[in-house]
């Protein structure tokens, strides 16, 4: 196992984007919650597919197609083992987390959730886990319920439990908030839900790659995540679902690959997971995701988690010392994501001025407008760290924030 501190410079060598100069300065990339940078091994895997394989999967009898199919299905196996699924048939490839959540709402939701039923989410959801359910509510006449959070950014568990009622037919919540960094006690929530026979969907976009995820240990029914937030390519993601659910769910898209036989009278759908993967998939993307899983496995979660704890503590302490700065999201259990606001300075002005120092952060509502309203803010600035970020980069961020204050003094 690599120890992170001694090997951080070696890890940084793996990410070619970190060699870029931005406005004449070294890039300080602190927008990892939006998307992480990609290691060379992921880029190479994608290039290898287009250079050497470049054939379709699941249909050819020729050499290249068999090889593409093998690499594609190996990636499914790697993802399955990575999140400890019982079988790789429980891994459905999607376009991303949003696509995965919509698959559940449109397939499971439309079939099993009726008028008057309730879907329980939380105040800290990303728009993807709000709007997909609102669409279902509009279609089916079901009701969206929202569990509150504290000012620190933690779920109010008593209130959460009170909101679970006889009409609750789905609980859908984020594992790690993309704005607050809060790690939610999803295992406890899943236990509460299962005592009442309610399925639970976890939006794991910000969780996978940060710490080990074991879907069997969590016992979640649905788990959605994206490749691009865990060092993989954009445009590909995963819906994990228990096989018993996938078998009950109808496909929402018809086409090639998702069928066993087609006639004008009757079509027989393919088995899981293929019945949910209509059309030629993002083959290069899936193979790239497999390479991303391998990259994380090779570093090992023990060192990744330790590094993120160290960075998180240092970040919170350093930001805490900046006069006039307020951190939004102070949960006890969180990942190194820090949303913040500065007295008398709009987040967009923060973002533009620190960009001049080479520091990339996200500013805005972070696709979580209801959460912004909860805090009475139009926007925040957000610095989000990953395994290649250093304490020196925290220092550079702080210096850049001091420059912002000097401009607006």
């Amino acid at each position, binding site marked *: 196992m690599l120890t992170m501190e001694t090997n951080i410079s070696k890890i940084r060598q793996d990410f070619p984007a970190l060699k870029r100069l931005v406005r004449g300065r070294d890039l300080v990339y602190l927008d990892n919650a939006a998307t992480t940078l990609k290691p060379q091994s992921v880029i190479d895997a994608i290039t290898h597919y287009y250079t050497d394989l470049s054939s379709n999967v699941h249909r050819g009898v020729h050499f290249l197609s068999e090889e593409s199919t093998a690499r594609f299905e190996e990636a499914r196996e790697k993802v399955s083992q990575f999140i400890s699924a019982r079988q790789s048939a429980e891994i459905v490839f999607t376009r991303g987390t949003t696509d995965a959540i919509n698959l559940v709402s449109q397939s499971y939701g439309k079939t099993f959730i009726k008028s008057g039923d309730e879907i329980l989410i939380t105040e800290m959801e990303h728009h993807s886990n709000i709007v997909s359910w609102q669409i279902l509510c509009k279609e089916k006449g079901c009701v969206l319920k929202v569990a509150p959070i504290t000012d620190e950014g933690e779920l109010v568990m008593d209130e959460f439990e009170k909101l679970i009622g006889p009409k609750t037919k789905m609980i859908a919540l984020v594992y790690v908030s993309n704005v607050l960094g809060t790690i939610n006690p999803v295992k406890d929530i899943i236990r509460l839900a299962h005592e009442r026979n309610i399925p639970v969907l976890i939006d794991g976009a910000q969780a996978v790659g940060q710490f080990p995820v074991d879907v069997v240990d969590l016992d979640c029914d649905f788990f959605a995540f994206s490749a691009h937030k865990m060092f993989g390519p954009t445009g590909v993601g995963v819906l994990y679902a228990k096989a018993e659910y996938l078998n009950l769910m109808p496909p929402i898209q018809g086409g090639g690959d998702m069928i066993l036989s087609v006639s004008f009278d009757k079509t027989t759908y393919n088995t899981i997971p293929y019945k949910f993967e209509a059309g030629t998939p993002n083959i290069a993307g899936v193979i790239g995701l497999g390479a991303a899983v391998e990259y994380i496995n090779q570093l090992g979660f023990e060192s990744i988690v330790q590094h993120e704890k160290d960075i998180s503590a240092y970040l919170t302490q350093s930001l805490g010392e900046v006069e006039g700065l307020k951190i939004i999201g102070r949960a006890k259990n969180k990942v190194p994501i820090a949303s913040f606001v500065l007295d008398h300075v709009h*987040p967009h*002005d923060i973002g*533009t001025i620190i960009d*001049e120092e080479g520091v990339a952060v996200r500013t805005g509502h972070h696709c979580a407008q209801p959460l912004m309203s909860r805090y009475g803010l*139009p*926007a925040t600035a957000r610095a989000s760290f990953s395994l290649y970020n250093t304490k020196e980069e925290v220092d550079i961020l702080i210096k850049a924030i001091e420059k912002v204050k000097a401009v607006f003094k």
Partner: protein
Amino acid sequence: MTDNRELYQQVILEHNRKPRNFGKIETYTHRAHGDNPLCGDAYDVYLSINTDGLIEEINFDGHGCAISKASASMMTASLKGKTVEEAEGLFEEFHQLIMKKMDPNKDTHKLGKLTVFSGIWQYPARVKCATLSWHTMKGALNHTSEITTEV
């Protein structure tokens, strides 16, 4: 490489700190609300236009970043006492300036202090901040009450 001191010039910072013609006015003839849904900036622009087509009062209200607030403030200062026709002309010129379709040092224009925004094309993400209040004003003149930067 540009320095953002070019963007955050003293005149912009000063208008951000002390915006002119800020706050709702009670009697107005034209009003519109402008939103930038991507960043949450939101302004109302109020105009009081007399029968001769003269802008007697123009105020704005709302919240946003320094660029959007300073731009709104400077717009109201420029348009007060102008005719509707002149306001529409300045809208066009400001648009040309922002899109780098005009060289304020060579081309003739009536922008005055508004040329402080000439470097903003270098910050594509911030162009909409500078133009939000102008589009809102134009909407008010055209009796369009809701303006958004996203079409």
